[in-house]
């Protein structure tokens, strides 16, 4: 026979055309049906997209200054028998940790109690009397300035010589200098703490940490020890080599207080991975769970509507069977229809998720970061959900007998 060589089966193109026509016949229903999938896919894409964006943001802010700072402070701890164990930092804490490999520089810091002694600046010769200022006084070892990345606007830092001799010299924080009216140090201006004169040798412009130094009058720790009976340093600032912060954080207490290292409190920057893990751990899990739930509901919605559609189109199914469609043809059409619905939902959902990511990033002034593969995978995920959702209704459609179908009118 001449026709035997020609096509016998429904081609993919014909199948797609029939399925698309079936889907397009009821546009409003299509929109409602895809809603669950749209929301689920959008939630997933936005969650992953915002997670990636936030991670990128954290990495960007993760500068060397933060990553290399370790602070050790004296602390107290309940021992359990109603007494409290207190430890103090030794005077040479900075020298002890300086021996550890990975420490770039270390310095100690202390607040100085000057009693009732007020602080006055001299340059202003006011006949009516000078103005007293309530300016905090701090003490520092020579390494502290380097440890907090301090920068001078003028003058110099004190050195080990000043410290050892307990010289009456100070470095002023920039705000303290403003209040005392000191802008230059080349003329060796003096300030008074109570009746004691101190020579100003430098003015701090900025520090990366411990910004209270900018408000303070800072004297060598040896001087504070000598003149104001300082008990002990209150904090040890360590600047480590890049990447050594976690290691030094573990070793420093032992080096500073070998007898009871557990009494010290150590402040270490989080490991680079920890921040990212926190983001994905808390926020992502919740949203991924919500997205998954929405997808499940979306899949059930597609299954439900496709099943309803099968029932409504009994007569169409009967007609198709009567014009030669096999059961597989009928089942195939309904599967493809629900795959198309799922795919459309995935497509719209992916677009919404990308828009949400970009929108939130714009509001937060972040740089949106999104793996482009996500935009490809999302519609395929939608189609897969449609496929799963369509299997049962398609099977039901294929079991409809043409006789039954054609009886209904």
């Amino acid at each position, binding site marked *: 026979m001449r026709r035997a060589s*020609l096509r016998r089966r429904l081609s993919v193109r014909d199948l797609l055309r029939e399925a698309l026509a079936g889907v397009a016949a009821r546009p409003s229903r299509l929109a409602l049906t895809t809603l669950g999938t749209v929301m689920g896919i959008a939630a997933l894409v936005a969650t992953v997209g915002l997670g990636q964006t936030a991670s990128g943001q954290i990495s960007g802010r993760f500068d060397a200054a933060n990553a290399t700072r370790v602070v050790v402070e004296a602390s107290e701890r309940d021992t359990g028998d109603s007494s409290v164990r207190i430890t103090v930092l030794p005077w040479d804490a900075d020298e002890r940790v300086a021996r550890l490999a990975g420490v770039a520089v270390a310095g100690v810091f202390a607040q100085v109690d000057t009693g009732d002694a007020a602080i006055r600046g001299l340059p202003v010769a006011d006949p009516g009397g000078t103005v007293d200022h309530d300016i905090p006084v701090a003490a520092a070892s020579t390494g502290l300035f380097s440890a907090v990345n301090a920068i001078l606007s003028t003058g110099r830092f004190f050195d080990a010589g000043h410290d050892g001799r307990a010289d009456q010299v100070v470095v002023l924080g920039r705000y303290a200098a403003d209040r005392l009216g000191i802008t230059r140090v080349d003329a060796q201006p003096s300030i008074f703490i109570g009746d004691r004169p101190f020579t100003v040798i430098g003015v701090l412009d900025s520090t990366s940490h411990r910004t209270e130094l900018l408000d303070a009058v800072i004297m060598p720790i040896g001087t504070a020890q000598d003149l104001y009976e300082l008990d002990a340093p209150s904090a040890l600032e360590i600047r480590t080599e890049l990447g050594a912060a976690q290691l030094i954080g573990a070793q420093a207490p032992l080096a500073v207080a070998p007898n009871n290292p557990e009494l010290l409190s150590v402040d270490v920057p989080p490991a680079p991975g920890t921040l990212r893990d926190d983001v994905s751990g808390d926020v992502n899990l919740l949203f991924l769970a919500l997205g998954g739930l929405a997808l499940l509901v979306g899949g059930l919605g597609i299954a439900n509507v496709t099943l309803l559609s099968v029932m409504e189109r009994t007569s169409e199914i009967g007609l198709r069977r009567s014009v030669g469609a*096999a*059961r597989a043809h009928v089942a195939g059409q309904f599967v493809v229809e629900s795959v198309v619905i799922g795919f459309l939902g995935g497509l719209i959902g992916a677009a919404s998720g990308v828009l949400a990511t970009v929108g939130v990033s714009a509001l937060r002034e972040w740089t949106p970061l999104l793996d482009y593969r996500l935009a490809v995978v999302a519609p395929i995920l939608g189609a897969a959900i449609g496929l799963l959702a369509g299997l049962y209704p398609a099977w039901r459609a294929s079991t409809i007998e043409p006789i039954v179908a054609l009886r209904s009118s």
Partner: protein
Amino acid sequence: MTRSDAGRGGAFLRPPVVEMVGVGRSFTGPPKVDAVRDIDLTIADGEYLSIVGPSGSGKSTLLHLLGLLDRPSAGTYRLDGVDVSRLSERQRSQLRGERIGFVFQAFHLLPHRSVLENVELSMLYGRIPRRERAERARRTLERVGLAHRVEFSPQTLSGGERQRVAIARALAPAPSLLLADEPTGNLDSVNADAVLDVFDKLHMEGLTLAVITHDDDVSKRADRRVRITDGTLSQVVDHPDVLHDVVQRPHALGHRDVDGVER
């Protein structure tokens, strides 16, 4: 043996389109029901047969058996010389699509598709290549007088026009048998006449028709009438010259040429 081989010698040598011998269909109960029994029915090529009977007489069951929508539980049924009881479900679907055109009382047109697409639907599952389908659908719509309605939606058509679309859909794959079930049941008398006129025209062109109806006015248009009562057939003898009639009409020999397709 194909029909065209046999047909060369003349109408008498061509095997009948339908040949039922001792066909019965019972539905396992309880209670067990013999919907039809001992049916011997032959429909010759080019014949216009009507099957009349009241509802509940087994009419629908006979229609389903003729249309390969159901399997006989007894007897043999040959369609175009092929014993259909041995075919698989899938083969029966294919044979149904190629050899039988259905016309239903309820039209069963897809409301969201154009008239042309509705007609093309009957060729979707067959062997006719896609590029030929639209052309064949147009030609078939011309045959039923609907050339001017090709791009219309079925929802805008009158009942008679809808049924003619359904007839075009049934005719497009060039079936051996047009099987109509109460084709005028949903139509007023004017539209019903128009549809029956189309049947007459198709019959004159050589098509084999079987019309199942309870309406005597419809059945009278046929060459030959059989009555079904309580599941058995009996001849209604008011056209004694049926066979001569078939032979004398020259169109009966080559009606497939109307479509330009040999079989």
